[in-house]
């Protein structure tokens, strides 16, 4: 293969954009050798991140998270269900991650993206295993009624590190969640009580005691944060973009909780073998990133 040599020669005279397209790996490796990434970030730095709360008025809790241009919209709708017999005083959370065709050129209508169900499952595992929410708090009437929280996360713009952004938006949506005020009516159904108007509808339940007396928030006991890194040769790149993900394929995702315990660790495929020192550095990067994200979410709460 005479390719490496010829491209090295070419690289001096070829336009940067053309070189990036034709020899993406070489293009990146040239950058990496200078400890810099094409978008100007150092290797271990994540992109600008911000979170907005309560954008969807038809949901009970919602959040929009942006990491670089990766954008996630998460919303929670609370519905009432009959709890299962093995856990009569627990509610439930159902998580679903969607990648609509608007988010990326690779997703076409009618053919759901391959990664969507995988991320769905991982999110659902992380949220249930890290002890963030006490499902007992979702109980309304023991054995009769409990809350079912439908958490739907829509990817509006896919530019790498989808899991990180999805988890961040999910956590933010939970912090924004307001559990509605409800009461039990004569037919044994749970109905909402609106503070304003519609009194005639509620005539039959005004005497009944409200099951959930005031709007309340969930207590988030333990908050998970995650960081995805690319391992390529000796380099570790935090928070990859879609372009970087498509070129270098060894991804490691570390999920840490508030006390820096590892909740979930995932190395999906890729050709690179991971040494323990690399893993340690990934965890260290994730710990730093967790602090940043905590700060970002903390700023939100004050508002």
């Amino acid at each position, binding site marked *: 293969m005479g390719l490496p040599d010829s491209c090295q020669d070419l690289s001096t005279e070829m336009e940067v954009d053309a070189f990036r397209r034709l020899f993406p790996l070489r293009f990146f490796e040239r950058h990496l050798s200078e400890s810099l990434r094409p978008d100007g970030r150092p290797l271990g730095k994540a992109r600008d991140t911000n979170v907005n709360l309560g*954008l*969807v*008025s*038809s*949901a009970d809790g*919602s959040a929009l998270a942006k990491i670089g*241009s990766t*954008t996630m*919209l998460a*919303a929670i*709708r*609370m*519905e*009432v*269900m*009959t709890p*299962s017999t093995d856990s009569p005083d627990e509610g*439930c*959370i*159902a*998580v*679903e991650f*969607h990648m*609509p*065709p*608007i*988010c*990326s*050129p690779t997703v*076409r*209508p*009618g053919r759901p993206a391959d990664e969507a169900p995988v991320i*769905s*499952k991982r999110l*659902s595992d992380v949220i*249930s295993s890290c002890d963030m929410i006490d499902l007992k708090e979702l109980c309304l009437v023991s054995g009769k009624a409990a809350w*079912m929280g*439908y958490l*739907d996360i*829509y990817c*509006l*713009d*896919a*530019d790498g590190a989808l899991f990180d952004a999805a988890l961040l938006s999910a956590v933010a949506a939970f912090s924004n969640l307001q559990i*509605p005020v*409800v009461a039990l009516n004569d037919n044994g*159904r*749970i*109905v*909402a009580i609106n503070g304003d108007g*519609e009194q005639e*509808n509620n005539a039959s339940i005004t005497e009944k005691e409200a099951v959930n007396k005031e709007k309340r928030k969930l207590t988030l006991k333990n908050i998970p944060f995650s960081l995805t890194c690319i391992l390529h040769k000796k380099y570790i790149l935090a928070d990859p973009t*879609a372009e970087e993900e498509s070129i270098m394929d060894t991804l490691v995702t570390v999920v840490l909780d508030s006390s820096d315990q590892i909740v979930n660790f995932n190395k999906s495929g890729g050709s690179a073998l991971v040494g323990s020192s690399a893993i340690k550095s990934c965890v260290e990067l994730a710990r730093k990133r967790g602090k940043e994200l905590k700060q970002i979410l903390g700023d939100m709460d004050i508002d």
Partner: protein
Amino acid sequence: MAAKQRDAATTYSPRIIARTRPPIFKDSDLDWTRPDGRGFHQCRPALLQTGAVSSASGSAYAEFGNTKVIVSVFGPRESKKATSYSDVGRLNCNVSYTTFASPTLGSQGTDHKEYASMLHKALEGVIMMETFPKTTVDVFALVLESGGSDLPVVISCAGLALADAGIMMYDLITAVSVSCIGKRLMIDPVTEEEGCEDGSFMMTCMPSRSEITQLTITGEWTTPNINEAMQLCMDASSKLGDIMRDCLKQAASASDE
């Protein structure tokens, strides 16, 4: 575990859905105000923004009151399902709703085939299809939140996204709807108004050429009412067209700097 429960457990929303026509118009037409306090011939304030999705060729976000829509345009790119040669381009449209788009819709966040075909019809007349032979332009819309007049907002937003993508068009495209309740005509109706309307009128037009590319009327209408509705829509369209033009200019000047 949780995901499986979703199918098995039957859940219901505790919210009460109004089943009767709200007593907004009985005899006293005059002292009634719209749910959001607008005048009858006043549109909701429009927020438009281009470049919402970085990975698309062009995209736009539109927010009219509670109606929030993102449209991405991809292409012109290789046709996936086209089998035969075509010397004009193809247009492929898709409209879907999020599961939380509307409290009454339930958890069916699905494709809206009807809207997709209406969007296609509204756009095909304005795009210069001959400028991209053999290829397809994909227009995908996602309704984040449904607050009434969803289809007109989707169409206008798609027009902006197409312009952002640099697809050649004869003109910008704007869509406006009018609801008829009793004797009143209301422009840009919200969900509550659409739910109890006697007739609806949706018009898609090219504001600078003042040409109508798509028109749908339902319910019973007299000719004077149609005249009035058309005039209302034309005025609103030209205003919306100006807003869209400003939005595109701003985006262009921002990228120059």
